[in-house]
């Protein structure tokens, strides 16, 4: 206490301990990195799986077809329409006066492989690493795009529903009394609405896209955290340090966010990965049932559905299963590590 106080660090000792605990759970720690790598790669899906080259050198000039659209005439072709880089004629033209850098997978999620030697769905081959689906589209490409959209959907849904849930729970727990009573009853009624029917009804009016689906799911998913946060606030609002803050003259908002919320955050953060695991599967299940993204969109659920209807082509089912299962396993492992990190009694030996 005499002069040897540690320098202020960015992380409080408590958070440093938590980080340590998280790292000590090796399984969760590596799961996090693998998951981040998978998700990070899938964010650049256009560079990995695309039917347009990354870079074309033709006649002394560079072209980047990924980002810009060039007519076929730019490469000495005949049509004013966009160049089809999979057309052997175009490839030959370019190869005459330059070269092409392709992404590792030469298919986008919607590209139909017209050169299949066998009827679709085609088994894995040198060209289609994981085979094709029943419309001749490359499974590997669809997997990467599908993974990206599922994880993004889950991530946005988790973040938005947590923010709404935490605020709703905080207001109920902090003010209590009638606010709490009425809010709770409203939630109970709201929770009783059948989500799936709402979606089916909606599908009759609009073509559900990513944002529509997100909005509808959000209408119902924000309730998962309310109970937890509400309980934490109910508990904490009578703590002495909350009273002390009131005695200092602090306002309600400042007490809620400065004094009570940090305590509620431990329970919330512990719960978050598990909510995330559920959310990533939301879109998959909707697509599987056919109430999800419009036809043609890359989707793990749609792939699962194809696997179900094409049992003679096991690569479809296996791929989709392996992808969804590994996302779930990784996220649950991360969740366990987070839980360890926030466990004040956890001792590693």
């Amino acid at each position: 206490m005499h002069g040897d106080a540690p320098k202020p660090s960015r992380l409080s000792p408590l958070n440093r301990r938590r980080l340590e605990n998280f790292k000590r759970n090796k399984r969760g720690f590596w799961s996090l990195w693998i998951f981040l790598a998978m998700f990070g790669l899938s964010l650049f899906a256009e560079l990995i799986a695309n039917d347009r080259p990354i870079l074309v050198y033709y006649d002394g000039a560079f072209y980047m077809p990924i980002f810009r659209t060039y007519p076929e005439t730019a490469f000495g072709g005949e049509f004013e329409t966009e160049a089809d880089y999979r057309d052997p004629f175009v490839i030959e033209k370019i190869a005459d006066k330059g070269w092409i850098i392709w992404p590792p997978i030469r298919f986008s999620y919607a590209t139909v492989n017209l050169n299949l030697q066998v009827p679709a769905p085609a088994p894995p081959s040198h060209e289609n690493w994981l085979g094709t689906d029943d419309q001749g589209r490359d499974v590997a490409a669809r997997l990467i795009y599908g993974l990206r959209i599922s994880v993004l959907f889950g991530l946005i849904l988790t973040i938005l529903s947590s923010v709404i849930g935490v605020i709703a729970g905080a207001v109920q727990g902090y003010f209590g009394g009638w606010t709490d009573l009425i809010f709770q009853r409203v939630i109970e009624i709201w929770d009783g609405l059948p989500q799936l029917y709402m979606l089916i009804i909606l599908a009759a009016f609009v073509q559900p896209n990513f944002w529509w689906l997100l909005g509808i799911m959000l209408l119902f998913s924000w309730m998962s955290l309310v109970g937890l946060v509400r309980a934490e606030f109910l508990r904490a609002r009578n703590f002495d340090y909350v009273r002390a803050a009131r005695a200092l003259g602090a306002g309600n908002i400042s007490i809620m966010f400065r004094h009570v919320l940090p305590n509620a955050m431990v329970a919330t953060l512990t719960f978050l990965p598990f909510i995330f695991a559920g959310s990533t599967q939301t879109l998959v299940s909707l697509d599987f049932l056919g109430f999800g993204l419009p036809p043609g969109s890359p989707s793990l659920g749609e792939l699962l559905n194809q696997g179900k209807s094409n049992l003679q082509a096991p690569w479809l089912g296996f791929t989709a299963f392996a992808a969804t299962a590994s996302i779930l396993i990784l996220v649950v492992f991360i969740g366990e590590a987070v839980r360890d990190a926030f466990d004040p009694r956890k001792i590693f030996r």
Partner: protein
Amino acid sequence: MADEPLLTISDLSVTFASGRDRHVTAVDRVSFDVRRGETLALVGESGSGKSVTALSVLQLLPYPLAAHTPGSSIRFQGQELVGAGEPQLRQIRGNRIAMVFQEPMTSLNPLHTIERQVGEVLTIHKGLAGPAARARIIELLRLVGLGAQAEKRLDAYPHQLSGGQRQRVMIAMALANNPDILIADEPTTAVDVTIQAQLLKLLAELQAKLGMAVLFITHDLNIVRKVAHRVCVMQQGKIVESGPVADIFTRPRHDYTKHLLAAEPKGKPAPRVADAPPIVEAKDVKVWFPIKGGVLRRTQGYVKAVDGVDFTLREGHTLGVVGESGSGKTTLGLALLRLESAQGRIVFSGRDIRALRARDLRPLRREMQIVFQDPYGSLSPRLSVGQIIEEGLKIHGLGGEAERTAAIADALREVRLEPDIRHRYPHEFSGGQRQRIAIARALVLKPRFLVLDEPTSALDMSVQAQIVDLLRDLQERHRLAYLFISHDLRVVKALADEVMVLKDGRVVEQGAAARIFAAPTQAYTKALLTAAFNLEATETGVVRT
């Protein structure tokens, strides 16, 4: 006293694993024995390892997190308990050696009736059930002084009983099988002084009647002097001194024992200026909580937590508010700061603040502050010490960044802490240091009126004395007015100019401190004083059980 020791502890050490390869030694080669019919007191401050010693007798520590180093031995009537098997230990726990814990609220299961709680021990060890068990339970409840209503109490749940009654039930459970040794781990710390006196009396009577040995764990030397035959003084896991009570108290040899004996809150408040301007005036202050009932939730009556309190508190003076728990002391303090809504007139430096709106009240909050009882609960665990103290300055928009930092450093120095600690977090500090931080948080706003809600009762005796000295010193320097709420009359005596005795929200007696301590006029005040200073229960019926 007797021949053969009942319980012999020799070279007992307990270590706790903390982190990967680190161990903390909680108990370090402790040796003592307990003989039949005697009371041995283990005394020490918090963290001295006295509770851990007691728990290791029954092998109730969280093994394997805790470990006994080789050579540790606890022999009970010739049986070695360290490393004994579970079946053997279960034969002893609650049967031959019984234990009473500190907190009567949490050591009884809230969902079980008293009959079931006490009956459980009988069923486990004696196989008693049905009417036979019932008869024994009633006998036990009579024994612990829940006599007259014993049969009605059988169906009561813990929350329907008072703290003292709950502790009596705990004792009844412990006595159910006529144990040879009763381990009492701070059994009176969580109850009022009056109840404490009653419980100590009960324990002494029971010991005389049943002839058991008592291992009494406490931090309070006055209790030791009252109840124990022999005493072991513990410091940092070691027994530094032991011997008969009379010897230790008259001729302490070890420095730590001397330090403990000297640590009582002492001194008297300095003489005051009698005509100092009044800071707070209360006129007929009432806090009534409505009791609602019926289908329409109409108010059917009131719990009168504070019922018509008047006083005037002058600048630089201290008003001590004393009473048992539930007497409305804390509610009164909160009402004066408008943290609880009240009726009547509350005048703060000439302004009636009772009906002020929250916004108009905010500037005044600067001048009236509060320090709470529990230093562990009153500091936000996720803010650094600096942020905690700074908060008030920020709310009231006082000073820029640099001025605030200077003010925080000043406040910390004022409570005799190093300014450097402001970057650290509350959990790194001891109870006494935390209480100083809580005082610094109040002081940084330069208040004129401070409500001190039992600021010393969660602290060790020697730390209490330091805090009392600090408070007295601060009062003199800043001419602060204190409303000092406490059930500990020794602390009140050391600080207060005037005393107000509350019972059930009403003022029993009010007047100059010297007069009340020397010549109380009311029976209730007298009972309170005897209980606090002589640890003796009064049989006049003015205090409840």
